């Protein structure tokens, strides 16, 4: 029985490995062909030397960071308060945090542009709209990561202990609760980073000079550089997931499921 099990399991696993790695291997090989006749890292050099790459990439890193900070500031107090004081709000809050699954990104940006591109609501060009939109996009992952973290600690006892020692609300939130759920927050943060860094749809339609639209333009104009960009993106995604994995082995693996297709 066990022996027979081995064979089909190995075969399926082998097919899986081929399907996973063949595109990556091909992309890597392709990215080395920028110089005629020899394998070289020319395409990577071209990408890294391109000022537009540096500009758009640092732009995206900046907005990803702002999105993460804004998300933490908004969702930690909310999730904490829902657990502590207004459990009646839980259903409504959870429903809202799942809404971004129901509204695909292209439909969402359609709504945003059509809502906020006419006076008196002309804020479509404001950089804050991009942070808000990315916060919405990462909300299902960020909020749920934080909420899972809060479930694992005794919020009520920690709060009462802090209060009886004379702590005020900011102290409780930032010096008691936040450090206790830092692993959960890191999970949410790196997942948000992986989603936001190469995000195309929102950045494109809100006309922001981000990394996603930059890659798309390269895809239309260059041959080998897009392959190098794909390898770089894959490395970034891998690094984000690897950090989550290293911090949170065994806890809530559901949190690593995302998407920005």
């Amino acid at each position, binding site marked *: 029985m066990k022996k027979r099990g*081995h064979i089909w399991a190995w075969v399926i696993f082998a097919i899986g490995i081929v399907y996973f790695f063949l595109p*990556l291997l091909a992309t890597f090989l392709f990215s080395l062909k920028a110089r005629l006749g020899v394998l070289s890292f020319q395409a990577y050099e071209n990408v890294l030397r391109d000022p537009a790459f540096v500009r758009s990439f640092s732009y995206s890193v900046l907005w990803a960071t702002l999105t993460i900070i804004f998300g933490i500031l908004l969702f930690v107090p*909310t999730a904490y308060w829902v657990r502590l004081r207004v459990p009646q709000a839980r259903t409504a809050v959870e429903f809202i945090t799942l809404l971004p699954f129901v509204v695909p990104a292209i439909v969402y940006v359609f709504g945003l542009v059509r809502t906020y591109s006419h006076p008196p609501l002309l804020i479509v060009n404001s950089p804050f709209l991009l942070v808000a939109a990315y916060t919405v996009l990462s909300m299902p992952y960020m909020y749920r990561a934080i909420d899972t973290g809060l479930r694992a600690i005794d919020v009520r006892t920690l709060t009462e202990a802090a209060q009886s020692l004379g702590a005020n609300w900011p102290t409780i939130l930032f010096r008691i609760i936040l450090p206790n759920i830092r692993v959960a927050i890191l999970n949410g943060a790196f997942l948000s980073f992986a989603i936001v860094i190469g995000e195309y749809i929102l950045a494109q339609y809100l006309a922001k000079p981000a990394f996603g639209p930059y890659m798309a333009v390269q895809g239309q104009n260059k041959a080998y550089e897009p392959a190098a960009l794909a390898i770089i*993106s894959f490395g970034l995604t891998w690094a984000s*997931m690897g950090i989550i994995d290293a911090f949170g082995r065994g806890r809530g693996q559901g949190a690593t499921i*995302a998407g920005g297709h």
Partner: protein
Amino acid sequence: MTQLEAVKRDALKARPAYHKMSWAWLGVMPFFLFAFLFLIYPASTIVIRTFQDSHTQALTLKNIIGLNTPFIKTAYWVSIKISVVTALGGGIFGFFLAYSAVRGGLPSFMRGSLMTFSGVASNFAGVPLAFAFLALLSPAGVLTGWLKDIGLNPYDHGFTLYTFWGLSIVYMFFQFPLMVLIITPAIDGLRREWLEASENLGATSFQYWRYVALPILLPSLLGTMILLFGNAFGAYATAFALTGGQITLVTIVIGAQLRGDILNDPGLGYSMAFGMVIVMALAITGYTILQRRTERWLR
């Protein structure tokens, strides 16, 4: 909920601080305000304008009826077809992969690497994913080159990366890792005792699957496949970067409508987007219902 039930529920939750409850709501107001401004209001704009005449603002079903054109119906049909095909394909293969990692007697590190890789691959999507498959299977791609060398150029046999089947192959790259991630806990929930019990009672392998394992797994299998359906249905960036917007998907048409009114009717953009939300809402509802049935066995 009847009034009596509501009273009972509130009585259970009542605490000494109950009379302060109205003030406590203030603490979650920033969240609700944010959600209203940047999610609910823009989304409801789509719903409201679907039922509004784009010139007179009068209430109308014109935009819904207007969806009944060959072009828009094709867009929905192709989107639904590609989502069903990749949900089934990704779902079935992802299930086998997860099952062989969990129950196939493989070394345990392989399960760990599969989960890590699935986490990465299900998040590796959009523009760079399209680039990876262009490097693999475009006419100048690496695999195409290898196949040409052995006399099997796929482009001589009607294959292109830029149409339905090509895009399906690309979508599978994020579909089956997602299946692996979600279905693995359900497979873990299949207890070894059930297999042993059915073997002791003389059941064949087929009978075990037909009467024990499959009925238990079915809700989570179907539920996860519905999720995969939604995942593919809402996808845009991958398809756009791969085909340059040449494939007719609902998402591609909505994007084109947003750049410039390609449907020659601003109202139709709203009703197309509204239609997508309806399909996604149905899918998520189906997933939630099936997920609840699954949870009975996952203790």
